[in-house]
């Protein structure tokens, strides 16, 4: 297993091509806008090395028998699925950010079971290839970006029907030793902090979409791959000299990027699906369900921080004893724990796939994510309610550093007498960060669209609703014979 320092050093060895604010980034690790997101991933290594978190953060590989970081684990039981969610809540609590490493874990487990079933059907050797690949991932303790979302162009058309054929990533050339792919993956969480990218198709496909039915994994610095870093609200505050309070969360963050694959070569041994369109739906559905489970952990951890920040703001404002404030904190907690309960439920109801790894209960995972598309918005609304308008009207850090202005700010923005004004400002900036600053990308809009937009979950819920059974129950009670 890597230490956090070894992880950071390993990133420095990558030769990534990243553009940010129109410029090519020379040093992605040290760039002030990227660094906080890298710190979040580094935390997944740091906590794995701490004895008090060892049980959650590490486990034993079924592939090698060696101790591994749980972020590289192929789930072997329902208990593993539960521990995954608990680990994610922990990391959310410690970083108050998206720590980015779940997506590769979810992709790995989806590809593991799907390749097994493709091999059973077509006598291919994808599963063997994937086991060898994932053994390397575990042994080297790599961070893997799971890349599913294509740009998709006209949503009413299939991949093969698009006016521009590159709007879904596809094979453009076949060679004896591999394939050449072209296309893009959007919203790629953590790609700049990842060693590898594990690509999957984004929607179920028909036979005519054969060239789009491709799954593979390659290093993120493979020739032809480049990334355009996504902007976040308030992101350039990180570029301000000596920025601290105004960042809300100085150390941690998350990121997404648009990743372009400009005629990228993929060797045969790294291809895990190629043209088996019948199995694309299975792969997409499994990845989506695992990732919808994930949100029942990570967003809950961030929610814990936000609830704590709102409670602190109430303390500092002298409003903690007001009954409506207490009630709002109860409501926030209720919503947050409801998210957690569905994350735990879909895990504990998990079952073995044909390959032997464990898969979440897909209905409950989709219910979990559907709740996540709603509850964080209500939690943020209540946090803003408790925080007060000062969260978005208060002076900046530069004003506090001005000797003339500082006494006035400290005097007039004071809350309760015993709490320093600067602490009040700090907690309000943290709430700002999560509700509408850089971390809002992860806590709000990602809660809406990450792991699939709300309608995607509703389709899955409808598919598994088993209405005929429910109708029969009603008929039996009502005495309806037919």
């Amino acid at each position, binding site marked *: 297993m890597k230490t956090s320092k070894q992880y950071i050093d390993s990133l420095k060895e990558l030769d990534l091509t990243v553009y940010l604010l129109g410029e090519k980034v020379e040093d992605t690790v040290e760039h002030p806008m990227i660094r906080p997101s890298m710190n979040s991933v580094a935390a997944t290594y740091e906590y794995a090395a701490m004895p008090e978190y060892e049980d959650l953060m590490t486990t034993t590989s079924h592939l090698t028998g060696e101790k591994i970081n749980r972020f590289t684990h192929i789930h072997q039981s329902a208990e593993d699925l539960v521990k995954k969610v608990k680990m994610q809540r922990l990391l959310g609590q410690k970083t108050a950010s998206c720590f980015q490493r779940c997506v590769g874990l979810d992709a790995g487990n989806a590809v593991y079971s799907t390749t097994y079933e493709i091999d059973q059907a077509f006598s291919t050797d994808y599963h063997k290839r994937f086991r060898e690949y994932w053994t390397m991932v575990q042994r080297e303790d790599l961070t893997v970006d799971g890349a599913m979302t294509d740009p998709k162009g006209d949503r009413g058309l299939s991949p093969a029907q698009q006016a521009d054929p590159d709007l879904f990533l596809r094979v453009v050339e076949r060679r004896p030793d591999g394939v050449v792919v072209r296309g893009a993956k959007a919203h790629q969480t953590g790609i700049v902090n990842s060693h590898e990218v594990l690509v999957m198709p984004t929607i179920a496909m028909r036979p005519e979409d054969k060239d789009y039915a491709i799954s593979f994994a390659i290093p993120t610095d493979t020739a032809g791959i480049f990334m355009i870093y996504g902007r976040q609200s308030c992101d350039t505050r990180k570029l301000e000299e000596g920025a601290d309070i105004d960042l809300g969360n100085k150390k941690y963050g998350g990121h997404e990027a648009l990743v372009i694959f400009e005629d990228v070569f993929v060797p045969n041994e790294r291809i895990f699906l190629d043209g088996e369109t019948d199995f694309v739906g299975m792969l997409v559905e499994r990845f989506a369900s695992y990732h919808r489970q994930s949100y029942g952990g990570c967003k809950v951890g961030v929610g814990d921080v936000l609830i704590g920040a709102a409670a602190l703001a109430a303390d500092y404002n002298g409003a903690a004893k007001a009954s409506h404030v207490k009630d709002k904190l109860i409501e926030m907690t209720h919503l947050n724990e409801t998210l957690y309960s569905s994350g735990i439920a879909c895990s504990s*109801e998990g*079952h*073995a796939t044909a390959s032997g790894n464990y*898969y979440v*209960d*897909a209905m409950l995972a989709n219910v979990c994510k559907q709740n996540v598309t709603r509850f964080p918005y209500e939690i943020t609304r209540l946090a803003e309610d408790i925080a007060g308008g000062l969260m978005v009207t208060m002076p900046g850090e530069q004003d506090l550093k001005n000797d003339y202005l500082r006494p006035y700010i400290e005097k007039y923005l004071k809350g309760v007498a015993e709490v320093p004004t600067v602490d009040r400002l700090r907690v309000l900036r943290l709430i700002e960060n999560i509700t509408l600053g850089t971390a809002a990308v992860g806590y709000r809009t990602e809660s809406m669209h990450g792991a699939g937009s709300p309608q995607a979950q509703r389709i899955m819920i409808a598919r598994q609703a*088993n209405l005929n*059974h429910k109708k029969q129950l009603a008929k039996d009670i009502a005495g309806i014979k037919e």
Partner: protein
Amino acid sequence: MQEQLELHIRYCGGCNPTYDRVALVSELLSVSGWAKKGGSLAPGDIWLGVCGCTRECVRPPGGHLRHIAIHQSIPVLTLIEQIKKGAEKSWE
């Protein structure tokens, strides 16, 4: 003529079944000619968990049982093949 097997048959709670579990088991026993086994479980016994969905709420107790779980409606001949295959497995 099928090889004569005896099965410990256990049903899940059936809160959300996606098929008629009782009908499938009845067809299985009728087509295969196999028998239900009662009494306590012994090492090597064949344990058939009849689950209404993938949640697999009924799982075998610890011990050296040869177990097969059903999650969804499958053709009875396929099920017979699965059970025969499971019966050939050595104790785990």
